[in-house]
Every structure is written in structure tokens, then in C-alpha cells.
């Protein structure tokens, strides 16, 4: 395991720590295969031993579908950011969900295009300051944000949940959600989607503590955490 190269306070390292914990606990590492998209998420392969494929921007769910159909016994997950999943490759996600491919799609939603330097992304909340919306995102000029977990829940998926990483209670729930997501895949019940709300202190122009506070506020105002869809799990 190498030293993390993420910024201080970044949610990527936090989420990857949770994933590592789950993989080791379940002993999944031999069957796992990760697919990453473009952006900050593409460094995933550095920190894990199982094969991680770099997909073309936005097409990670399609690559994962190809892997899953060819070798159904593997556990395939995509690890994408909100810019990659929501802006470039929403069609790949929707079609994978409609086809009922049993893959796990993890989206770290930090509400900003962090990999390219902090521009507005599709999930940037109204009023948020980014490098391309200096006065805050205005719905009149830049449109409304997309609510990913709610949107995916309307599709024929097995599981769709939004979790957050700002408080220990929420981190516990995030861990449970990630476990459930891989269980749904193991049962072959369909696509499982987990949207993880995270922080990006440098491009939110805040300290990590302030960023956690503003994530807490945005959770109440814009993006409620919760399970939006969960079919009965086969035990």
C-alpha cells in the first residue's frame, strides 16, 4: 500500500479506506475487478491489489457490463466521480441499469469537477462557488443540479442509496450500504448504485472542517441521504 496522494480531507481516501475494510473482511479480493473513469477517481488502482481498468471517460458501466457478461463469477464495480458518471456517461449507466447487469456502481459525489480543477459539475448545488461559477451556481444561467440516487431509483435497479461521509453515524451507514451493494451483486439481483456524498476542500475553497459543515447543510437542503430503492435481498 502506497501513501495517498489525495489532498488533505479528500473523501476519496476516506471511501477507499472503507472499501478496503469491506474487501478484507469479506475476503473478496480474489474475485474483484474495478473499473474507473476519468478524474480524481482514476488513481484507485494505485491503492489496491486487484485489477483495475481505466475506462474511457463515462463508459465505465459499459466496460463493467462487458466483464460481467463474460465472467459472471467476478465481482465488478465501477468507481466514478460525479462528473464522469453524471456528465460524460449517464447513458452508459442508464443502459446498464435497464439491461439488469449485476454490477455495483459507486459514485463519489463531491459536487465539483475536482480532477479538472474545480469547475461546476452536474450535481453542483445551487449557490455553490466553483471556478466556472464565480458568483455561485445560478439556476437561471447554469441550470439545476441532478439528483443521481433519486434518478437511478426510478430505473429497474436492485438498490439505490445516497450516503454521506461527514459524520461518524453517516459513515457507519455508508459502510452498510457498500456491503449491501456487493451483496446484491453477488446474488445477481441487478445493478446496485451507491452515491457517496463527499467533500473536496480545495475546490470548495474551505477548510476540511468547514467543508464537512457545509456538506451537512447541503444534506438537509439539497441531497437527503437515504435508501431510494432496495428490492428484497435474497439471503
Amino acid at each position: 500500500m502506497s501513501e495517498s496522494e489525495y489532498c488533505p480531507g479528500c473523501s476519496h481516501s476516506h471511501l477507499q479506506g472503507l472499501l478496503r475494510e469491506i474487501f478484507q473482511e469479506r475476503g473478496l479480493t480474489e474475485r474483484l475487478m474495478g473499473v474507473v473513469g476519468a478524474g480524481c477517481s482514476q488513481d484507485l488502482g494505485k491503492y489496491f491489489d486487484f485489477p483495475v481498468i481505466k475506462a474511457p471517460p463515462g463508459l465505465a458501466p459499459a466496460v463493467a457490463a462487458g466483464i460481467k457478461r463474460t465472467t459472471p463469477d467476478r465481482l465488478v464495480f465501477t468507481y466514478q466521480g460525479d462528473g464522469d458518471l453524471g456528465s460524460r456517461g449517464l447513458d452508459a449507466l442508464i443502459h446498464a441499469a435497464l439491461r439488469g447487469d449485476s454490477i455495483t456502481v459507486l459514485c463519489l459525489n463531491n459536487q465539483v469537477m475536482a480532477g479538472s480543477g474545480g469547475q461546476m459539475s452536474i450535481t453542483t448545488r445551487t449557490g455553490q462557488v466553483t471556478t466556472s461559477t464565480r458568483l455561485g451556481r445560478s439556476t437561471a444561467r447554469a441550470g439545476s443540479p441532478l439528483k443521481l440516487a433519486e434518478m437511478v431509483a426510478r430505473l429497474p435497479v436492485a438498490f439505490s442509496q445516497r450516503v454521506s461521509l461527514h459524520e461518524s453515524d453517516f459513515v457507519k451507514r455508508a459502510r452498510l450500504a457498500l456491503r449491501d451493494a456487493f451483496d446484491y451483486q453477488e446474488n445477481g439481483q441487478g445493478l446496485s448504485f451507491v452515491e457517496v456524498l463527499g467533500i473536496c476542500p480545495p475546490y470548495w475553497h474551505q477548510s476540511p472542517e468547514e467543508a464537512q459543515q457545509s456538506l451537512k447543510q447541503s444534506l438537509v437542503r439539497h441531497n437527503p441521504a437515504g435508501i431510494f430503492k432496495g428490492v428484497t435481498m435474497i439471503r
Partner: protein
Amino acid sequence: MIISAQRKSLSGFEVVIEAALKAGSQSYFAAPSPFQALLLNEGAMRFEEHHGSFIQAESPAAALAMAMGASAVGSVPLVTVNEQDFLQLQEVLSYCCLQSRPLVLVVVANGPPGMERNWLQFQSLAYFFQPLLGTGSPLVSYLPSSLQELWQHMGLAFDASLKRSQPVLLLLDPLLLMQQGPVQLSPLPSVKQRERELTKNGQSLMPYESLSICLEWPCEHVWLAMGVLGEWLLQLHKSDWNILCPQSLSPFPKQALREALAEAPEGEQTVINVIEYQGPFLFQQLQNILPEFNLRSHILTAAPEPLGLEMKLATLLNTACQPERKRDV
């Protein structure tokens, strides 16, 4: 069940799918688009019959992305696309090249991107060179000229793809897609249960001669054509014409060409008549590949047909040989 009869009448699209199954491909991905859909219809049925995986993708880029994933776990997938969709694919194809994923990409050249019409007709070689030069990586590109060659080239493509661990292009003329005729279903090198071996680029890719030749010296004219046009020329059976028909664009069989032309009687400067449709695309490439030969470009302005081709070529030769007349204004 794979067809086991040795000789069977098949259409071009059936040949592609049968050969892929015979070569041991396990997965097939495609998105519907005009004329290439023939392959999709056939492949969807045959691959599912054969317990392979098939996904009808939402877009050609997604189809290639799926193949990229499938080849990451040991399969050598087949992807078919349209010429017009190829531009959208380039990005994903570059990813496949950089990550050295073995897969076979069949490109149906049914028209250039941005063309107003989408007819099934004879295509200029420009649209074969475009996929070849687009990615920036030198890819192996086969260009079969008859159904039997298509069968052989499909096997070779899977073999070369696995050996070199890179995508291989098979450029399919739309006329060949629809053509029906007897095909000898000869055994193909199977990709199943074979360890992936990386070989150097210098390795010969064509176990048999990569050049269809009809050479008899002394002769009146030497012709060079590619694809279906080359096959038509070979079928003319003119005793005083020498015909060269290369079977792959990349790597180009320049060694075989030089050996074939070395037998020419001395003292004569052999003129190679390069014949093609619409523009001097092949001629420009050949000028770089074979600088030592005397090449002459002939361009057909109308789409050629096998009937009356001989007359057309004779007129082309006459106009080329006559000295240029001054035009009266």
C-alpha cells in the same frame, strides 16, 4: 452447433459470424446501424445459440468499451461497426490500443462520415484508410477481397490479435457483406485456451502469401488494385495483363510485391497501373511505400461493376497513353 460441413453457401455476414465462432470468440458486442445490422442480427442469434455473451449496446463506443472489458478477462471479443460510427469509436479504440487489449473490430465501409446518402454501393479506398490512420497506433488491418479470403482473414485476425495483444481491424467492403457464394470452411487457428503471447512486430502475420497474383511475363500491363475491385480484375483472366491484389493494408506486403516484380524481364521499366475509385488514396500511400517503382494512377469516377470493367480499363489506358491535347478556348 458450429456448421461442420466443409463447403457451404454463405452470405458475407454469415461468414464473419461463423468464422468468429470457429476461431473461438466468446463474446460479441455491437450497436445497430444501417447494413452493419445484418451482422448484428446474425451474431445475436448465433452467439446466444453458442452460449457466448452478446449485448446490443446503446452506442458503438459503448460496444467497444464492453469489448474492452471482456478482453480484460481473457476473451477475444468481436465488435462490428459501421464506417460512419468509426469516428465516435476512435477515442475508445485508442484506449484499447494503449491498454493492449486483443479484440477484432470489423468495420463495414458503407459510406464516409457525413455523407448525405447511405446506400449500399461500391466504396472508395479513402474510407478504408481512414480507420487505418485514425488512431495513431499502427494496427493490423486486413482487407479481404472475396468470401473465402474473408473466412481466412477472420481466423488470422483473431490469431494476430491474441499474439500481438492489440486490436485488429478487418475492413469489410459492403458488397462483400451482401454477396453470397460457396465458402470452404477450413479449420482456423482457435483462440480458446491459449496463453496470450506478445510477439515482436517483425513476425510474419500472414502464414500464406499476402498477395493474390496473376503474373506471366512478358506482359502488356501490370495492374494493382485492392479489395473487391482486385478480385474482379483477377476474374477477368486476361492473359496479357498482370494483376497484383494485396490483401492487407497494414502491414502492406511490400516484400512480396518486390519479389513478384523482380521476375520482370530486364531492360524494361515496369509501369504499375494503380486503379481505384474516386481519388488517388491508394496511389498516395504506395508512393511512400514503394518509391522505387514507376507508378501510374488511374481513377474511376463512376462506381465500377464487374460487367464492362475490361472496357473501362482499356479506355483509361488509352487516355493515359495519349499525349495531352491543347484545348481550344
